């Protein structure tokens, strides 16, 4: 675009318009969130195979597990190595990679993520905690 672009093109929409747009995209983002979660669970379940079937069962809510310290875990994962990092990381990995690694490292935080631990954590958290994790990530 030409040099004149920003000079004469940009205009701030009204606050009411901003709010209307946020309200309009809210349900679409929620749908994306659900879809991403289902996709991650499906991929993890498929990739990790029978050895992690229990964990996958936890993820889809078919296996009851003690909720061990989930609040602490949420606090621990409220930084860079948070839920979305894990989602993006897991989705970017080939099934073989997921199968072969027990721990991986995020490029941004260099904090090791123990995959099995995450699986357990993901499976243990309920919707409220999931949403809190999202909120924490958004506020970071």
């Amino acid at each position: 675009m030409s040099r004149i672009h920003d000079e004469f093109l940009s205009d701030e929409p009204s606050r009411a318009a901003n709010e209307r747009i946020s309200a309009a995209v809210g349900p679409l983002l929620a749908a994306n969130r659900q879809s991403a979660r289902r996709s991650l669970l499906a991929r993890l379940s498929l990739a990790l195979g029978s050895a992690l079937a229990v964990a996958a069962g936890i993820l889809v809510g078919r296996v009851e597990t003690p909720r061990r310290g989930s609040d602490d875990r949420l606090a621990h994962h409220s930084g860079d190595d948070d839920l979305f990092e894990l989602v993006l990381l897991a989705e970017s990995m080939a099934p073989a990679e997921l199968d072969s690694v027990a721990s991986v490292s995020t490029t941004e935080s260099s904090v090791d993520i123990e995959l099995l631990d995450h699986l357990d954590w993901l499976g243990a958290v309920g919707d409220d905690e999931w949403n809190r994790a999202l909120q924490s990530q958004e506020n970071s």
Partner: protein
Amino acid sequence: MKNRSDDELIALIGTGSTGAFNELFVRHRALVFGYAFRILGDRARAEDVAQETWIRLVKISTAWTAQGGARSWLATVARRLAIASLRAERRLEYHPADELDQSEDTSGLSRETFEDVLLAQESREVVKAAIAALPDVGRTAITLWLTEDLSYSDIARELSISESAVKSALFRAKERLVRELSDSNLRQGRRS
């Protein structure tokens, strides 16, 4: 979020991140709305176009593949929706009688020279108001010509009008803008 690239934010939007959407929205909302507003000349309709543009971005986010092209993508979608809106209201009809005899844009102002005329104007709002006051076809044609580096034939294709109609519309629009901005400069000169 502020350190993330547009592409990273869109990937996060694909996973449902409201924070990523808000960051991208803050970065580009003025572009999306402003572009639609320049073309449509109407705030309410431009807000509708902006809303639809952002909805489309969220919908496509799960399949986003563009590398570094978010800004361009948003501008293109906003432009096309705005033009479609004008076309739906038959505001882009251009009658042969409106065309000039000249087969070329003979205003004598190149894009660079014309940009200089606009940039010389102290108040950006005066320029925006002058562009907004142009007729629909002229306003749209000059917005595309100035901001997108589109050729006459490209603009003609976008607006579904003839190339000579584009040249004619641009000629009239530039002539009117230069006249109004010169008058404005004179008025500013008298005040200072």
